[in-house]
């Protein structure tokens, strides 16, 4: 069903979405109608409650057609994971039905201009003021930040204690006074997906919208990313598959030197490498999804391995797809140059590839019983 939808309705829109850098509201409505924005929510909140393997397949199939569109379910999950992991029953009942139906969009507000990989460097403040908090500061690189109805925001409630111990998480409704999204980034890829700077000018947030206790923010942020990066691995696999499929079809049609390009062994070797790497990334992603479903204690090891491998594979396979198409791969008349630009982001967001390596290495040392030396 998702593949059919992606082939018939999403793929034909992909080039235009990229060119105009416009969020595909029509496809958001379509995904909502097909219940694909509710895949990560429990059925009691109106969701469809797919397991992580199922969710990965949905994301992969959409990303195969268009990476921008695949971000709609990805970010819906990313923005709501803090609530899933640390929210109260009351908070879930208040927000999940609107998110599961796709009526509302969610976003995840962690990154700041000087707090990217270094999550603990968050500077945004949350000052307690009676039965509410006042949030001040700004966030940057927030996917869907300008179109979301709610953002899960991370801010310091105890600046003295620093990011690790003094950070708390909040649900912020974006129609709150003092909230604004003044600027969008101009990006290389995933151009239809708005990446916003968010400003908070003494934004009032009720205490009832705090997730967990004060000081839980750092833990919630990391637990969220440990799970959400699985979606990025699935997205990367989807992008790679899209590029591979296109390259194969093209090579079978294009003739040079009086024969099909696909009959040249040099091209065949490239296609075979692209296919086997994509398949390896895909299977690792499913294995990581199964680890998350099983609630494995070392799930961050699996999701980081998957995202690391899948992101690199997406980059390599899309680059090779451009090579297979030759000059035609380099022009926007064909989709592979877009896929190559889209692939790059999977090596960067939700933890750069370097951060993934740190996570994997930390798990290795823990398993070996040799704790990492503090710097």
């Amino acid at each position, binding site marked *: 069903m998702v593949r059919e939808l992606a082939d018939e309705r999403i793929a034909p829109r992909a080039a235009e979405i990229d060119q105009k850098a416009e969020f595909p509201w029509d496809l958001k409505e379509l995904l909502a109608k097909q219940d694909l924005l509710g*895949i990560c929510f429990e059925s009691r909140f109106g969701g469809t409650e797919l397991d992580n393997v199922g969710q990965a397949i949905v994301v992969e199939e959409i990303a195969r057609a268009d990476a921008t569109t695949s971000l709609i379910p990805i970010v819906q999950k990313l923005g709501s994971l803090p609530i899933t992991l640390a929210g109260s029953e009351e908070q879930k009942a208040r927000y999940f039905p609107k998110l599961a139906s796709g009526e509302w969009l969610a976003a995840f507000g962690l990154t700041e201009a000087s707090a990217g990989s270094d999550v603990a460097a968050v500077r945004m403040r949350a000052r307690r003021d009676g039965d509410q908090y006042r949030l001040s500061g700004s966030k940057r690189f927030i996917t869907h930040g300008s179109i979301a109805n709610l953002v899960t925001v991370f801010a310091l409630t105890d600046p003295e204690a620093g990011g690790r111990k003094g950070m708390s998480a909040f649900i912020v409704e974006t129609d709150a006074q003092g909230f604004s999204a003044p600027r969008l980034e101009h990006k290389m890829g995933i151009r239809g997906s708005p990446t916003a700077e968010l400003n908070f000018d003494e934004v009032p947030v009720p205490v009832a919208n705090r997730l967990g206790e004060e000081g839980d923010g750092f833990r919630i942020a990391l637990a969220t990313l440990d799970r959400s990066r699985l979606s990025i691995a699935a997205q990367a696999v989807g992008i790679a598959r899209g590029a591979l499929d296109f390259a194969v079809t093209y090579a079978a049609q294009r003739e040079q030197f009086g024969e099909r390009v696909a009959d040249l062994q040099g091209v065949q070797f490239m296609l075979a490498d692209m296919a086997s790497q994509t398949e390896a990334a895909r299977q690792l992603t499913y294995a990581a999804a199964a680890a998350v479903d099983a609630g494995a204690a070392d799930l961050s090891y699996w999701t980081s391995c998957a995202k690391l491998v899948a992101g690199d594979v997406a980059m390599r396979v899309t680059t090779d797809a451009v090579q297979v198409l030759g000059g035609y791969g380099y022009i926007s008349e064909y989709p592979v140059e877009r896929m190559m630009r889209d692939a790059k982001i999977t090596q960067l967001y939700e933890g750069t590839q370097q951060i993934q390596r740190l996570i994997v290495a930390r798990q290795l040392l823990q398993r070996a019983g040799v704790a990492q030396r503090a710097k």
Partner: protein
Amino acid sequence: MKIIVCLKQVPATTAEKRYTADLRLDRAAAEAVINPLDEYAIEQALRLQESGTVETVGYLSMGPEQAAEALRRALAMGGDEAYLVTDPALAGADQWATARVLAAALDRLAPDVALMGMSSDDARGSLVPAAVAALRGVPLLSYGSELSLGGATARIRRLTATGFDLLEAPLPVVASVTDQVGEPRYASLKGIMAAKRKPMETWNLADLGLSIADLHGAALTRVVEVRRPEAKPPTERVENLGPDEAVARIADWLVARKLI
């Protein structure tokens, strides 16, 4: 009010077709889908149900056991119940046998409207709707671009070369619709899950009170030959010539065929 949509599982249009030794389509060899033209009938029925005109939408198919997949897929799009008629004796059934079996099943289900697509994507005989109507002795409203239902009547709008006809008949009727009814919906995720719990009954010939002898065998017709369409001669191209020479070449070609 109740609509039964008759649908057929067919090999996907793009699938490579293979034939068995007795020249029947090898249905196991190709990916199977709901006949795309039947999807419009499903869409029409579901729209009537959504508008409140129709209470129950059911599906009926005759085919091998795997046709249950097509029925399950239809149930994922919407509707309430499904009926599969499957019997080894029916292998190779032609349109006559199909119509007899569907008519018998419809006698049992007694819908107000038996709704069908305008033709099947595989054999394209397009006779079944008319044959079923004749066998059941009910009116046929065929090739509708839209079906609407009044208290005791059914009406279709049928496009013609010069405009359209409105045809009306008292219920119950057999009706067929075209691709003008509107794009068939995709099954939603919840629809797919709900479909697993919707009732599906399987009947064989005996359940319908029929025997293969009643049908004079599965087929009155016999396939004599199956052929690929003849390949068209390669397109002649006029390329890399100056305009004058190219025009002269094309004009000669047209004159030689008495086209100008």
